[in-house]
């Protein structure tokens, strides 16, 4: 069986599956249940400063988006950081770390943007013996109104400054957790690196309103007739998170900076995708909150099964393998020509490919052939866009096949050599030698 142990910033864990800082990691009881279930590590629910803890709303905190059969696709929350006292949290962290030395425990922290606040809390966290800290610069609701969380994460200068303080007052690894509520995630990542961060983790939740209650005309969750934007997470955010991970992984300024991937990870496959984009490990929240801690068993078995099949001995064997293949549009090969192909044996004749192409695209799929209901690709019209593949309800029924020779659509010979937009004759600023 493949070796799933990971060494992230020198922090060892039996597998790359950590629980993200959130309700599943709010107290010793949950964390120990998670470890019993097999999770490799946890980022403890975010700690605040000494003093009276924050309070949460006493009405509903969550809203959701559902797929068929009420499958939870996206979750939205208006929860704040831990509402338990700092004292109790630190004490529990110390005890749990002692009992579970082989698992990773990271303290997530969010205190005001003043050096003293960090100077006060960091030594106390150090004392617990946990493996590192994660700076919560991402919480998009409530805390950001008080100048913390995303309010810091949206200003690269603050990120760098706070990270520097942490490196000054804390000896173990410092992970900076990034907010996705920003235009270009590379700037905060660069700031974290400049501040001396050992790693970044992303994404935190996305500003969202998941539903409007049409009877009361108020956002859901509704608290006494009003709602506030929440933070969005779960399967629906995975594509956004993966893009942000890739942006950082392939940015020359941050290349090589370790990344902990977060956002919508629900199965081993999601995890493998994040890791291949450059993450040293992954963190999970919503999937655990939906199904309980047992899901990690599927993640462990799925990942090791796949690694065995592919012949990867350790996670390091495929970390970042997909990152170099993420490129800019302008470097995509314009001489790569594909056509859709329908497997008539698999086709169930629903006609979705036809109507999608006919109404909204390139009129390249028939509905009748010799008077009979039949769906066939018209190569002369097909631009190879993949829409039919995406709307077809039958797996692998429509495939995209590369062609060579003459493209029936353009009637032109396809150049077998790579050529991109940078040299394309239609590009007003084209150069002669293709850039890469």
């Amino acid at each position, binding site marked *: 069986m493949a070796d799933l142990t990971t060494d992230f910033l020198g922090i060892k864990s039996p597998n790359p599956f950590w629980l993200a800082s959130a309700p599943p990691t709010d107290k010793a009881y949950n964390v120990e249940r998670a470890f019993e279930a097999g999770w490799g590590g946890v980022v403890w629910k975010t700690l605040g400063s000494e003093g009276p803890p924050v309070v949460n709303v006493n009405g509903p905190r969550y809203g959701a988006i559902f797929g068929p*059969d009420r499958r939870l696709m996206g979750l939205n929350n208006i929860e704040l950081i831990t509402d338990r006292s700092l004292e109790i949290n630190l004490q529990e962290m110390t005890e749990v770390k002692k009992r579970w030395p082989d698992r990773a425990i990271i303290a997530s922290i969010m205190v005001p943007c003043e050096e003293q606040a960090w100077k006060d809390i960091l030594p106390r966290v150090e004392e617990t013996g946990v493996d590192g800290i994660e700076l919560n610069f991402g919480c998009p609701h409530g805390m950001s109104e008080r100048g913390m969380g995303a309010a810091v994460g949206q200003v690269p200068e603050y990120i760098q400054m706070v990270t520097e303080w942490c490196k000054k007052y804390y000896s173990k690894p410092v992970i900076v957790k990034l907010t996705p509520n920003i235009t270009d995630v590379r700037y905060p990542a660069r700031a974290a690196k400049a501040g001396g961060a050992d790693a970044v983790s992303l994404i935190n939740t996305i500003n969202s309103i998941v539903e409007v209650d049409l009877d009361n005309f108020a956002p859901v969750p509704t608290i006494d007739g009003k709602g506030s934007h929440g933070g969005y997470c779960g399967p629906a955010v995975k594509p956004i998170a993966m893009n942000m991970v890739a942006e950082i992984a392939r940015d020359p300024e941050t290349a090589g900076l370790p990344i902990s991937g977060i956002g919508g990870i629900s199965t081993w496959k999601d995890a493998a995708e994040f890791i291949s984009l450059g993450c040293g490990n992954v963190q999970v929240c919503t999937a655990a909150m939906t199904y309980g801690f047992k899901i990690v068993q599927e993640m462990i078995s799925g990942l090791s099964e796949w690694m065995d099949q592919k012949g990867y001995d350790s996670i390091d064997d495929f970390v970042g393998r997909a990152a170099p293949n993420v490129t800019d549009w302008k470097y995509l090969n314009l001489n790569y020509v594909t056509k859709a192909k329908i497997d008539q044996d698999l086709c*169930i004749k629903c006609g*979705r490919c036809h*109507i999608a192409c006919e109404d909204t695209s390139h009129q390249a799929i028939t509905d009748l052939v010799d008077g009979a*209901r039949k769906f066939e690709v018209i190569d002369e019209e097909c631009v190879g866009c993949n829409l039919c593949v995406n709307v077809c309800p039958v797996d692998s029924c429509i495939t995209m096949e590369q062609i060579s020779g003459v493209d029936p659509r353009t009637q032109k010979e396809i150049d077998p050599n790579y050529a991109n937009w940078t040299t394309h004759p239609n590009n007003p600023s084209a150069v002669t030698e293709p850039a890469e």
Partner: protein
Amino acid sequence: MSETDFATRDIRTGRLDQIDYDNNFEDLHAPLSRHEAMVEAERCYFCYDAPCMTACPTSIDIPLFIREIAADNPSGSAKTILNQNILGGMCARVCPTETLCEEVCVREEAEGKPVKIGQLQRYATDHLMATAKEHPFKRAASTGKRVAVVGAGPAGLSCAHRLAMHGHDVTIFEARAKAGGLNEHGIAAYKTTHNFAQLEVDFVLGIGGIEIKNNQALGRDISVEQLRDDFDAVFIGVGLGNTNDLGLEGEDNDGCLDAVDYIEKLRQTDDLSSLPVGRDVVVIGGGMTAIDIAIQTKLLGAENVTIAYRRGQDGMNASLYEQELAQTHGVVIRHWLQPTALISNDANEITGIELEYTSQENGKLSGTGEKIKLEADQVFKAIGQKFDSSVLSDAGIELEARRIKITEDGKTSLAKVWAGGDCVAGGEDLTVESVEDGKLAAESIHAFLTR
């Protein structure tokens, strides 16, 4: 096994406890809950030029109504259905969907599990009927035209509703005391429970402009000629008044029964335990009526129910699904057997039936000479209904294959007279086809009246 005994009979009422009658005659398929309906609706692919829609005789826009359910708009969904088929509620319960819409559903092709179109249709129409404060369709401004509709079955009701919608005034002449036709008197009880047929009649009449005159029979109380004189147009939807006989001696003996008559009694009684039912029952026939009488006598407490059909399984008019439904209820279906004699006791009561094996060569069916006898306290005839053309008197309406001949849009050979439903030639005798006939005829009448 008991000795075959053709001397004693065992026919009784009240074979079961009340609770068993109640359970046995509950809905065949429990209605879908909201969640079940949403999940099922999500299975629909919203096909382009959907095959299910083409297969529906009333051309209901099935992908659209299912999408409306999935989008939590069951009332809008019901309107999509009722717009094409005003008896969409009954059709959802009685259509042999396995040979209509669901047979061609692409998910049937894909995985042998069609979208449950019928049950979704019921979900939407039930929802509307239970919640709507007013009838979903408005009448057009009155045209002042008057149309006579004969027969308040599916064909007549559908025709009347569409005419009323177009602003015409409709008078329905119905021979029976109650409207609904076979919805009220013929359909198996477990398909249309809780008085649904009457609720639906009330719903249809809710549009206004339709008057029903009960106990008015064409050929007895009124005539085609008279209606032609008194009204601007006439629609005939009288169904099939007669049934076929076995042509055997002893058919009038006690215990030899017409299935359709018996079912009508079953549908009209308030007390199922009052129906006499035998211990051993034999049904002759291979269609929907045979299946229905077999299952219902079984549900009334008959011990052994056998359907004897003179051809093979493929020849049966009842769908495979209906045949299996009978079999899961414990009915035995025997093929290649034709009745040759009824066996009676000295009191002229049926005690059994003699059947002869058959075989088919070049499409011709013949007896093999080999015979068997089956014990039977009741023998039900379910070998087809036929049109009673005497109701037309001598109005001069042409027939075809012993039913009324019509054009595609329902015109008979006599000016101002249209017809539809079971009483016309062609097609299968189904509720949904009768609804379509009535609707098409109404459109044709409307075009004629407003030309």
